[in-house]
């Protein structure tokens, strides 16, 4: 049995001196190790895959993506460790500041952002283009969870629901206008997740669900019919083409059909360097949105299932931390993170597998991209912090 020389609720002078190891100083001892291992294994697999699959993508620099992703990974892991040591509860106090920063950063992209493929989503920094909406996923959860806790006793349940929805959907709308449909959907899902763990009544979710269905119908059918297109043409095409891939095997559905062929052709053990689908440009964006197709083709069912298992492990540990949290804020934050990770993984992998629309959501810890890697590791760091704080306050609780 270890003695802890840290603060506990009923701290008493210890009868003898306890040696405090470096591991404990860093909080590593109370980290959720399966969660850490899953995250690190995913990023290692990502760097490995990028190294193999993108050798010819940048002329004269075969390791372009590999080197950069490795640097992002190291920065991300460092960020994760730092957050591990911070008591996440402080973010609750900072909710207004975090929320303001979130809204400001996703708005400033309109002014200072650089446009890539018709969309302004990122700031161009030296060596790095920073996409605030990626970090925004975490910031939204941190701030909204604070607002939910804070407003738990104010107003009627209905008023609270409307307030949370407005708070969450405002930044989502800003991101939607960048335009970045995929990330705005993650924002919306994170908002709903925080509300869900914040105890919003089931009936409200039923109403929200019904409204959502109506909205989709309006956006995809009614609005274009009266001449007010809400989505850009390519957005709508991408969203709906997976429903009828054979009709549109040459346009937006073409890429997805190629991705499905790529994954299928990997069979059980993969095609390795003989991969053609993802090597010969049949599958676009192979280092970002369609990296799962690369894994599927190169490493087969073994590789793809391994990666999916790591995500399942990640999700399970995150959900476990939801139940362990020492306070409600931690529950809400962990819940928001867990659900938005699940959503991103499912939508991205589902898109690669041809069962979800093309939305441009990266695969966390796998797709190439500094903002995404960094933000995901920071989210994992927050989860670790919740876990550590829980372990420190409630040692000996039953854990599953």
């Amino acid at each position, binding site marked *: 049995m270890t003695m802890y020389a840290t603060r506990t609720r009923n701290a008493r002078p210890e009868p003898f001196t306890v040696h405090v190891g470096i591991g404990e100083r860093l909080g590593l001892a109370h980290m959720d190790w399966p969660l850490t291992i899953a995250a690190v294994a995913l990023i290692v697999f990502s760097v490995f895959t990028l190294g193999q699959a993108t050798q010819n993508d940048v002329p004269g620099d075969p390791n372009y993506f590999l080197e950069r992703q490795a640097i992002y990974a190291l920065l991300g892991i460092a960020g994760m460790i730092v957050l591990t040591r911070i008591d996440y509860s402080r973010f609750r106090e900072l909710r207004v500041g975090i929320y303001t920063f979130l809204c400001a950063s996703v708005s400033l992209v309109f002014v200072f952002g650089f446009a890539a493929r018709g969309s302004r989503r990122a700031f161009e920094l030296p060596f790095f283009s920073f996409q605030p909406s990626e970090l925004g996923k975490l910031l939204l959860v941190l701030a909204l969870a604070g607002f939910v806790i804070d407003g738990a006793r104010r107003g009627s349940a209905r008023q609270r629901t409307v307030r949370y929805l407005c708070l969450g959907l405002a930044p989502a709308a800003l991101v939607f206008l960048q335009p970045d449909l995929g990330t705005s959907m993650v924002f919306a899902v994170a908002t709903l997740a925080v509300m*869900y*763990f914040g*105890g919003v009544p089931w009936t409200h979710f039923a109403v929200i669900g019904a409204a959502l269905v109506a909205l989709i119908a309006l956006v995809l059918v009614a609005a274009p019919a009266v001449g007010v297109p809400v989505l850009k043409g390519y957005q709508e095409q991408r969203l709906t083409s997976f429903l009828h891939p054979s009709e549109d095997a040459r346009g937006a559905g073409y890429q997805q059909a190629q991705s499905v062929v790529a*994954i*299928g052709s990997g069979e059980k053990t993969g095609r390795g360097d003989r991969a*053609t689908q993802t090597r010969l440009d049949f599958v676009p964006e192979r280092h970002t949105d369609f990296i799962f197709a690369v894994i599927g083709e190169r490493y087969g069912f073994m590789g*793809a299932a391994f990666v999916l298992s790591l995500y399942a492990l990640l999700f399970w540990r995150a959900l476990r931390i939801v139940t362990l949290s020492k306070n409600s804020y931690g529950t809400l934050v962990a819940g928001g993170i867990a659900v938005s990770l699940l959503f991103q993984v499912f939508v991205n992998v589902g898109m690669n597998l041809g069962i979800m629309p093309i939305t441009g959501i990266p695969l966390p810890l796998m797709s190439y991209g500094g903002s995404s890697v960094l933000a995901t590791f920071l989210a994992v760091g927050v989860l670790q912090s919740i876990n550590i704080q829980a372990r420190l306050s409630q040692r000996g609780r039953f854990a599953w």
Partner: protein
Amino acid sequence: VYLRNDSRPQGSRLSLRVAVIGGIGVALFAVLFFRLWNLQVLSGEEYLAEAKNNRTREFKVIAPRGDILDRNGEVLVDNRTSLALQLNTSKLPEDPAEERAELARLGELAHMSLRKVRRTIEEGEEVAAGAPVTLRRDVGFDLVAYVEENQDEFPGVAVERVFVRHYPDGTRAAHVLGTVGEIDKEELEESEFAGLEPGDEVGKGGVEYAYDRYLRGDPGHTRIQVNALGQPTPGGELVSQPPTPGKSLKLTINGDVQTAGELGLAEYGRGGFISMNIDNGEILALGSYPSFDPTDLIEPTQAQVNELYRDEELAPLVNRATEGAYPTGSIFKIITALAALENGVITPEEVVQDNGLIEVGTDTFENAGGEAHGAVELRRALQVSSDVYFYLLGWKMWDTNDLQEWAHKLGIGRPSGLDLPEEGETLLPSKAWREQLVKEGLALEDRPWSAGDNIQLATGQGDLQTNPLQMALAYAALGNGGKIVTPHVGLEVEDAAGRVLKEFDFGTQRKFHIDPGYRTAILEGLHAAAQEGEGTAAGVFGGFPVPIAGKTGTAERPGHADQSWFAALSPYPNPRIVTVATVEEGGFGAESAAPVVLDILEAIYEKQASEVSSAGGAE
């Protein structure tokens, strides 16, 4: 109350919510795993087959060759686009009967026999196995439309837009321009064609060959996705790199002078001509008759093949100005004169009695026509073309190598340095050559070098074999005082916008001293021959407003009627341009070759001549 931050949310209600989310998570992951299993394990084979079928093909985008221009920028060769019927043999039906049927249908469309179709495919496969074979170029739009409408009947057949050389003026300057064609096996090995691939088009002759590296350009490529039939999938264009067109080549040729020479020569028959700047070797006109239309070589019919390749007498592909090998007759006499003067065999003023013939041992050498010219010195001997005078010089030099040395210096019987690949074998007969011939047992008569041989050579007869190009070089050296220039047709390389990218500098090959007095004496004689009184060509050039120095030649060519020659340096006395023409079986020099030269000179001095005459007369 569900939420109170200093504690956890109410246990059972949270547990329910977590359980629901956990359940959703399990369901979603189950969906993903099931889908993955379905794709990779259950139907993996089908997808693998689809992926393998899902090929890209890289299509080369041919770069158009550069234009070829004359020195004034007039287009001599450019490109036009044409439709070519191509066949991808790997897509032919596997069943031999079906394949035969398709090839037969194709042949019918392309007006080719089944045998010809098969042979074309075989030849194509030999050069580049697997690459699409071009069955026929320049197919019509109706045929294209038919093939495209009936794609099912013609698997593997495609119509490609290709660049074809276009010769706006047909046969004009054909020998200089040369032709293009698909690179052959041997050429693929050569270093100058490094990096080229089977099916690429390269120059096969003339400047097309000599300046191929500038004219060629770099092909681009398009990688597109193709379906199982090898047809491009719409929207499946993956990578595209546009081709770099070849550079334009500007020639030293003056199109108007060239045309004048060709028209003039065509009046008299087979032969060749050259007109060249004697100071820098720039060739203004270079032609041969009969000529050919390079267009005919792109897709020759059997009749054209017969005409172009089989007829040895006409031999239209041969550039007679550079590949011919003829005795030259009297135009050789300037070389004899130079050799004799420079070696002190004679002086310009020394008088020789021309009785119409000389006897050397048992042999008699007569003037052409047996005419006696009486007392002649160098100037008059050249003017009236006294053979006896030069027989005597040849005789005096027979035991030395003086005549051969000077002929060799002046470029006879050796490569000229011309920038075209077409240059024929020539022969400057000498004692050493004769001995070698006898030693190898190749001589027709087993006899040593004789005075007679040298006497023949002195008047451009006997075993001498040369061509207008070499004679032009020798006359140029006389005109410029001992400088052997490098004859060339390449002037500069330009980009599409006409900016000069490279100017060619050929320089001078070698120099030697010619006594200015001797040069003046010979030029005087040549001027008299061309334009004064009894001059052999005075009848032709007497009325020509520009003073020239020229010499007629009438060569006896075994098995043929006399060959007509004329060589001119103009303007006299400070010449800038040498012009040489020869006409096979053209009779006396003044009969055919001289009028051809006159046509050329008229074209060169057209503007100047009109100025001269408007200023009040010639000379």
